[in-house]
């Protein structure tokens, strides 16, 4: 198995970092119906969806080897994209859960809140 999934993991972590920054930027709300925690959760899942799209675009248009140089390498890379995307998505969610649990009293804790 070729290690083409490394870029997928890097992309997933970069997108997770972006989701974290945006989540932290969302201010705590008060009042009757605060929505800040839901918004942070929404940000996490929106970026979870964006993650494969971004990686797919990157893979096709930037990371893929030149087919004219090596058709075989190109085909192997394209065939591996679904697997890499899956690894990226799983990495995004697993690292997201870990970060959320480690920082459970902070804003990232809202991604995966503890049940009452």
């Amino acid at each position: 198995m070729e290690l083409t999934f490394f870029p997928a993991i890097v992309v997933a972590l970069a997108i997770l970092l972006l989701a974290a920054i945006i989540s932290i930027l969302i201010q705590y709300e008060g009042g009757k119906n605060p929505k800040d925690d839901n918004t942070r959760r929404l940000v996490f899942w929106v970026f979870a969806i964006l993650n494969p799209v971004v990686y797919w675009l990157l893979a096709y248009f930037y990371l893929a080897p030149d087919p004219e140089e090596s058709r075989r390498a190109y085909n192997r890379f394209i065939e591996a994209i679904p697997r890499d995307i899956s690894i990226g998505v799983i990495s995004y969610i697993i690292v997201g859960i870990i970060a959320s649990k480690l920082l459970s009293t902070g804003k990232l804790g809202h991604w995966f809140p503890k049940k009452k």
Partner: protein
Amino acid sequence: MEEKLFVIAIGGTGMRCLESFVHLCAIGMFDNKEIEILTLDTDQANGNMGRTWNLINTYNQVKSENGRQNGGTPNTNTFFSSKLNIFKFYINYSNAQRNTYKNISKLGEGDERTNRHNQMISDLFLDKDTVQEFNLEHGYRAQTHLGSHLMYHGILEAASKIKNGDDLGKPEIDLKEFLTKLQSAGESARVFVFGSVFGGTGASSIPIIPVAFREAIGIIGNDNEKFDPKKIKFGSTLLTEYFSFNKPNQNQLSEKKNSIIADSSFFPINSQAALQFYQNDPTVQSVYNNMYHIGWPVESKSLLEEKDNNTITGGSTQKNNCHILELMCAAAAFEFFNTSNYEKTDKIEYLFRAIKYENGIFELTSPDFVGSEKGDLFLNKLGAFLSFAHIVLSKNEGGNGSLGTKGFITQLDKNNIKNYNTITDDETKQIDEYLKMFAYSFSSENLFNPGWIYQIRNSILPGNFLFNKDAFKDSLKELRNLDVGNLFLDNKHNWKSSIIKSRYDTFITKLTKEGKPELNQNVNSTKEKFLAHIHNGIMISQNFIKK
């Protein structure tokens, strides 16, 4: 010897001073203290007294564990850190046989000779058609000579009832308990008396209270040798005139029951006469240690919101707004209770402090209230409680009946602090109620009602009161958007913010990471722990002292 603290609040002004004192207890100025409070009045329906009782009742509900009414326990370095025990004594003048001096003294009864002598003695001191016959239900109406006599009589009369055990009402039971505690405290008691010297009930009572209590303890049958006012540390306010109200009109005065109505235009003269009395009276000189002379150097404002031209003489409609001088009186009590190594001497000490007043504006700083040594402590604690009030009332919209404290607990729950989820809705409402009385509330028609600290600040406008003007916003929209961590005039005490974090965000971070209650705070119930946690989080954010 651990000192026992006693507070006696007398009359309408005394009640408002007590209101300020209770708020000082709520912000945590009387850490780890148990304080016995006696309210003393003649007007049992008085609006100011009712408001103060309600305040203390709410304070005790906040401190009590759910379902219990024990008023909690003293704590250290937190909000609501002192335990308050309230005793309510009032002299009942509502009965038709007891509603005037004439009726109480039974003038006109007995044989003709005795009756003539009684009438002559009464006429010598008290005007026959007015002072002897006005209705006492609303207090002594600035007739201090009558008031001192009747208050002394009222206390001794209650003591006799207690001794005989006949048909005791709640006021007599409360007086008995208070006197028993005072007597058991003996020389370790420190007693502070709140009242004005220019009005009726307070002015009448301050001079006679120590001696009346000694006599009452003697009558009840306890060993009154153990209670010698000359050996106990007594302090009091010498509060001269600072407010005015409508002059009584002729229609009102024409009623017999209203033949005497206090006229605020005489308050300066009353004050002057009272000060001369306090300077010369040997009894006052021998029983009081400290008297805090507190006065208003500019023209008095009218504090009453009178709907018509009548003067409000008392009753449930008398709910005057609070004034900065009442906070000064409460601060005087703080000074009295916190000064160590008092030596009881025969000489009374008169204390005062001057405040900066320039171009028609008061410039108040925290040392003006509690001295330079404790100034930061006072500002820190008052600022913390004001921030707490805004977190609950403004940020979580408790001021207009929304979630308030409950909303804040929900926020902590979302941040994985689940320790406070067991605090019931009733308990959170009690905290909200207290904070509304402290800061502000909105009526069901969304009308703004200023609470204690807003009223205090309004009383010195356009001067400054410790915090920036944003701390005292009064529109719903502005309050919803209020930056609750930006209340201090000195920016170094405002909560820190950065490009990615608002002040409130920084506070929540500090609260969750550093603010947990500590053992030495002596907090036991979940509610006490919750209050201590918020207290700690705000204190750390305000950056007064390094933790």
